[in-house]
């Protein structure tokens, strides 16, 4: 094959690859759109299932019949369901989630305020969980059957089975009430509150960027307990998964080849086997992140962490359906976004999908 022929085949080959890439991206897009749509249908249905009368929730039960009917029409409740859904869709796209009758703000402004705190907590917890869990799982697999393996599995199993709100409460009982080592809740102490309004929304990062070390230390002091607890739950899951992935790889023939080449254990495990599980790990880390969003709802309540979870639970307590739905929708959107992100990175890492 001379060089000009080689170039010709290479060009048509790469344009074919481009076409299939575009097709794949378009399919992903369609999938995401349908998922989003489904999400909205579900939240809409949840909103309509409420046995409480939304009109009365808005105007109280003392109002007279005329006001009732007026507000009824205003809220669009007399329109057919599909029209109501349409209005709902339009509102959502414009980020209008209605108004919260407790805080008196729009739900979207409330959400914008609380959501960075949750992201900070969930991200930190995922980093802790992955940083501890993955090596633990790998070591467990490599030393299968030894005490390290058994210990790792028991620790993991406990993490799976512990009710996270209970663990949080116990930690507060022991480390705050008994030993005074950690604060009783909140994101930062009152002296340092509001001192740093940074670009990222993460108090830790913003205070470092602004050079405010006292703020940083206080923020760290407050975040460490909830992040470690959530991180523990993530670690349990991730160590279990990485152990299972690793075991599967160590059974493969190419591991024997690597050993036959004269590679030592460390190179075999990390340069060969680990490279093959990176993609699967990515998927489960994304899943762990979404699972943590569940955990934050409970942990934020226990630690009075001013995030999405606490907002949701107080909205539930006060039957503020707009706020509840807005939060639920946002959490669903975050889940989808995380999965999409992991999908994209996956495409880059795995040579088999290129």
């Amino acid at each position, binding site marked *: 094959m001379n060089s000009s022929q080689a170039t010709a085949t290479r060009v048509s080959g790469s344009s074919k690859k481009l076409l299939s890439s575009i097709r794949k991206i378009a399919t992903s897009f369609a999938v995401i759109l349908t998922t989003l749509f489904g999400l909205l249908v579900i939240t809409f249905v949840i909103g309509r299932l409420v046995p409480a009368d939304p009109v009365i929730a808005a105007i109280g039960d003392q109002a007279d019949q005329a006001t009732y009917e007026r507000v009824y029409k205003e809220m669009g409740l007399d329109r057919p369901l599909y029209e109501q859904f349409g209005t709902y869709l339009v509102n959502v796209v414009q980020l209008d989630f209605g108004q919260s009758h407790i805080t008196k703000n729009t739900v979207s402004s409330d959400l914008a305020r609380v959501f960075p705190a949750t992201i900070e907590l969930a991200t930190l917890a995922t980093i802790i969980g992955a940083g501890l869990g993955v090596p633990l799982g790998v070591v467990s697999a490599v030393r299968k059957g030894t005490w390290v393996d058994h210990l790792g599995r028991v620790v993991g199993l406990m993490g799976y089975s512990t*009710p996270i709100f209970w663990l949080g409460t116990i930690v507060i009982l022991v480390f705050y009430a008994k030993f005074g080592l950690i604060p009783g809740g909140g994101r930062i102490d009152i002296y340092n509150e509001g001192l740093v309004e940074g670009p990222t929304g993460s108090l830790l990062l913003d205070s470092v960027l602004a050079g405010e070390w006292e703020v940083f230390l206080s923020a760290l002091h407050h975040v460490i307990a909830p992040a470690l607890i959530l991180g523990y739950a993530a670690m349990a899951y991730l160590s279990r998964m990485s152990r299972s992935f690793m075991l599967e790889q160590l059974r493969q023939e190419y591991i024997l080849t690597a050993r036959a080449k004269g590679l030592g254990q460390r190179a075999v495990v990390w340069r060969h086997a680990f490279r093959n599980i990176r993609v699967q790990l990515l998927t489960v880390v994304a899943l762990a992140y979404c*699972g943590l969003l569940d955990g934050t709802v409970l942990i934020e309540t226990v630690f009075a962490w001013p995030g999405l979870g606490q907002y949701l639970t107080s909205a539930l307590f006060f039957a503020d359906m707009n706020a509840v739905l807005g939060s639920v929708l946002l959490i669903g959107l975050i889940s989808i976004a995380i999965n999409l992100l992991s999908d994209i990175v996956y495409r880059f890492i795995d040579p088999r999908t290129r």
Partner: protein
Amino acid sequence: MMKNGSFTTLHNWLISEDFTSSRQARLHKAYVAWLGLLANPLAFTGFLVVLGLIVVAIVAPAITSYSPYDQDLSRALQPLSWQHWFGTDEFGRDVYTRLVYGARTTLYISILVTLIVAPIGFMIGAMSGYLGGWVDVVLMRITDIFLSFPSLVLALAFSASLGPGIENAVIAIALTVWPPIARLARAETLTFRNADFVVAAELQGAGMMRILLRHIVPLCAPSVVVRLTLNMSSIILTAAGLGFLGLGAQPPMPEWGAMAASGRQYLLDAWWLTTIPGIAILIVSLAFNLLGDGLRDILDPRNG
């Protein structure tokens, strides 16, 4: 293990592999699985705990001397003692009694959810795998949509809109638990979909339902059972979470999560109110996980 007399004959009959009837073959399989369970101490412990839970729930009145509902404010917030093994709560009710009756609530929720989810999830998944085509695409999209919500949040949202109460909590939890079962059923069905024996049945004129029920269900059963057992643990945790947030079982009904929640206010003075129910949740959840893990090792030896 020494077995003497009639046990030995029975044991040998069950162990032998020359089957004279399909009933013997089935009993043999069950017996071998049972032996496998006995050989795995962790899984067996889990099994015993689960069994214990069921027994406790059934004989609750027999093992408690107080009523879970009677209030006596003069005896509120008492620490652990011989009269009150786990102390009393803020209304003077015996915590141990409420814990025991709470086992009933826990079992009620878990069993009900499983009874709803198993057939529905399985049917959706199996039909999806069997029929393929647009039915598969649509059903899987729906499953994915439900999967894209973190389960507690979705259960929360449904629970909130349906209103508090234990039946609504069951429905809400069931709505979050069915997707993984459907996925599993679909994957298993796809494995067997084009097997020769299925095609043979189709040629004989068997319809979809018959094939699914008589041929595919028995083959999928082991992995579905394992998954359901493992799921019990998360059902219990979700139910406790809902209880903690005030949804689900309403007072005065004893429910472990709700007990832990109401105990928070008195955390510093009466630590047992929150700690003890939490330990109960932990133990039961752990037991189901151990049992599920053990079952998986027995029934599905691929996953070592």
